[in-house]
């Protein structure tokens, strides 16, 4: 068997001892590879216990509305439908997943209660003997809406008089220890702007992005003879899902067991606790196994995407290409509920101002509520879109100064001993070296003084 590997270049860190391992550093075939390529890996959906019921959600057709009436009688009349759940069936209906690490307040209903805050929000859960009957039942739930004004833009949401998206917060932003945003205050950016030869300010914007796992989010809950629930799930975090589900059900934690395993792609979407709680309630109320799996449409439009971000960056730059001040205003579009976005916004703040040593940094990072599908964790969230903005900004500065874009980066690169904007001293840095290596790979010539730079000297700025 031949494997593609990438060359390891040891010339950039010559003082590191040569590795001496038996297994580490050598190619070992991925344990799931053969199962995947021969189609023999088993996933949670391969389970079909006797008496399996299917669950489908009836979802909001409005962006923001009061629920005047919810009529489930036609759904219950569909042959095969055994139960229709509403918020009244969920023991602790309002939750937030990061309460496990102390994030408050609870701000999201498992099933909508009184109003809906985004298009696609689940209102009722229809449980039936077949998937088709569950779908038919979900389609026959009748909801009377009283439309409310909706807000979709992050800056409009923060403006005076904007409709309140989420009453549990009372305003359209997440509160960080009394502040309306997560802040970074390091040095004096205004003095830097006054002292700069150039000031550059640009705006960046992204749109929500789907995780697009091959396997959609879902679970099969199987009640056990001893009264416990065995939850077969494609969660990325077994205990995180278990703990949140137990809190919603109001049951002791040891009444639940999560069996995870082979997951058909996660990328952060399967850290939400989206399907297990309502499926568990259905299993408890019917005494039968229940399967709840998102359709591709639900995965695309209802499950959390990567948050859209809007980023303004204003830089103070000297004529020779030193960035002496950077001011960043970030708006993370959390959608209607917190989920993991308050965490992601703090992670974004910790990443600023990028891998550069800038003596004056000011950042306001807002986690904003809008009437949109709640965003949540996704591969690198807080950083991925920030890097798009930061590295576009670096390219624009280089071009505005007529400088080589790699030399601009090397001149500003953070090194061991530098104090970051969040006041942690940098160590183990290697930005200088990856830039030098990339330059070498594409034949981008750097003058001697830039080739001699090192992450291990010149720091402590």
């Amino acid at each position, binding site marked *: 068997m031949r494997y593609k590997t990438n060359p390891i270049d040891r010339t950039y860190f010559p003082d590191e001892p040569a590795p001496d391992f038996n297994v580490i550093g050598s190619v070992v075939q991925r344990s799931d590879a053969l199962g995947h390529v021969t189609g023999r890996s088993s996933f949670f959906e391969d389970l079909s216990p006797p008496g399996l019921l299917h669950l489908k959600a009836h979802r909001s057709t409005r962006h923001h509305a009061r629920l005047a009436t919810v009529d489930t009688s036609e759904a219950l009349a569909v042959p095969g439908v055994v139960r229709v759940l509403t918020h009244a069936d969920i023991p602790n209906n309002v939750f937030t997943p990061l309460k496990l690490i102390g994030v408050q307040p609870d701000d999201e209903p498992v099933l909508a209660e009184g109003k809906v805050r985004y298009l696609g929000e689940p209102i009722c859960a229809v449980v039936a003997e077949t998937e088709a009957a569950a779908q038919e039942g979900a389609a026959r739930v009748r909801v009377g809406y009283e439309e409310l004004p909706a807000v979709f833009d992050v800056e409009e949401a923060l403006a005076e008089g904007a409709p309140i998206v989420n009453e549990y917060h009372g305003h359209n932003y997440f509160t960080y220890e009394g502040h309306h945003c997560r*802040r970074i205050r390091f040095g004096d950016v205004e003095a830097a702007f006054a002292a700069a030869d150039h000031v550059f300010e640009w705006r960046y914007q992204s749109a929500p992005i789907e995780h697009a796992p091959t396997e959609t989010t879902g679970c099969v809950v199987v009640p056990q003879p001893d009264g416990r629930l065995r939850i077969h799930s494609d969660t990325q975090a077994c205990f995180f899902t278990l703990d949140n589900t137990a809190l919603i059900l109001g049951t002791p934690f040891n009444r*639940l067991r999560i069996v995870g395993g082979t997951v058909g792609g996660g990328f952060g979407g399967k850290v939400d606790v989206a399907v297990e709680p309502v499926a568990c309630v259905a299993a408890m109320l019917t005494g039968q196994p229940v399967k709840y799996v998102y359709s591709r449409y639900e995965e695309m439009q209802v499950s959390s995407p990567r948050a859209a971000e809007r980023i303004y960056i204003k830089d103070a730059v000297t004529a020779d290409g030193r960035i002496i001040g950077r001011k960043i205003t970030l708006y993370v579009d959390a959608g209607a509920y917190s989920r993991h976005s308050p965490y992601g916004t703090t992670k974004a703040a*910790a990443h600023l101002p990028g891998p550069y040593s800038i003596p004056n940094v000011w950042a306001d990072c807002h986690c904003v509520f809008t009437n949109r599908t709640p965003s949540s964790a996704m591969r690198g969230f807080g950083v991925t879109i920030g890097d798009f903005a930061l590295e576009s900004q670096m390219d624009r500065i280089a071009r505005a100064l007529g400088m080589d874009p790699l030399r601009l980066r090397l001149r500003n690169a953070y090194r061991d001993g530098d104090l970051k904007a969040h006041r942690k001293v940098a160590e183990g840095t290697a930005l200088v070296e990856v830039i030098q290596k990339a330059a070498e790979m594409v034949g981008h010539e750097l003058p001697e003084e830039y080739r001699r730079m090192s992450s291990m000297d010149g720091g402590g700025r």
Partner: protein
Amino acid sequence: MARLRGRGYASVNYPTGMNLGGDPSQALIHATTTGTFVVSLSSVDLGQGLKTVVAQCAAETLGLPMENILVDTADTDTGPHCMGTFASRGTHRVGNAVIMAAAEAREVMLAVAAEELEVDAGDLETDGTGYIQVKGAQERRIHITDLALAAHFTHGRTISGRGMFLKEKNDPVPETGEMDPDSCQAHACTVAVVEVDDETGVVEVLEMHNAYEIGRALNPAMVAQQVEGGAWMGMSHALFEATEPYYPARDHGPRDFTEYLMPGAADIPAYHNAILERPAGNGPFGAKGIGEMTANAPIPAIANAIFDACGVRLDTMPFTPERVLRGLDELRGYHD
């Protein structure tokens, strides 16, 4: 009408572990009487290879071949706690916990072997093929299968170990944002070469050059998989993906893979990758963990390459043909 070529750069860093810490993971390990070591976890392998890499960590620490390691995971009844697979924490957190568990088990393994061979445990070494032997006297040795049987039936010992990794939770100072968010930082510089069709607005990525500093390449084939898989995702984010293409408007949302486009096999550029290793003191064998970051640098590298090719600065993702054409129109002085 022309196809315009351009080159763009981006350099990034990325933090390892749950932001601000407080995200423990545990590992337990024990030898069965066959001499196989079972690593018990509750961590989830998302297809990125966590089970493989932690088995390597166990094998290396025990000094045994990979065939002697089994990983039993993702069950909350049988495995100890893990915070979850996210935040580029799997390799770092779980790897460290497994090394700690395996080191404790190795100590017991050597102690029992010392009794069997009637030597001091400090005089023993593993040969990596399954034998524990006396240093400098390799004919005095015992195979792990025989040792595990002896431990159980003769000495009444379990060969087992416990491991855990926790970076203590840190709270940011609200006024200044002072905090300790990460365990280590990995680094990357990406150079993208693109061609822009100035008639259709279609951007084709021709080459992607990626230089990564990752601490330690625990499994070089899986590093290549991470780097190239992430580069693909970054390219996809850059050029194709949005669930709300006219954000903040809510309409035109794609519903399936015929409407939500991503690059196919023919869209994949030529990848040229290189790895640097600057081992992290707190990483498993120095590894930092690059699960997430590989999607990041490609996006601005492509944006900057598009500007280099045709002079259009795209400050809004994704860089669709429509946005490229509107940018070109603006450069040419056309307006709607």
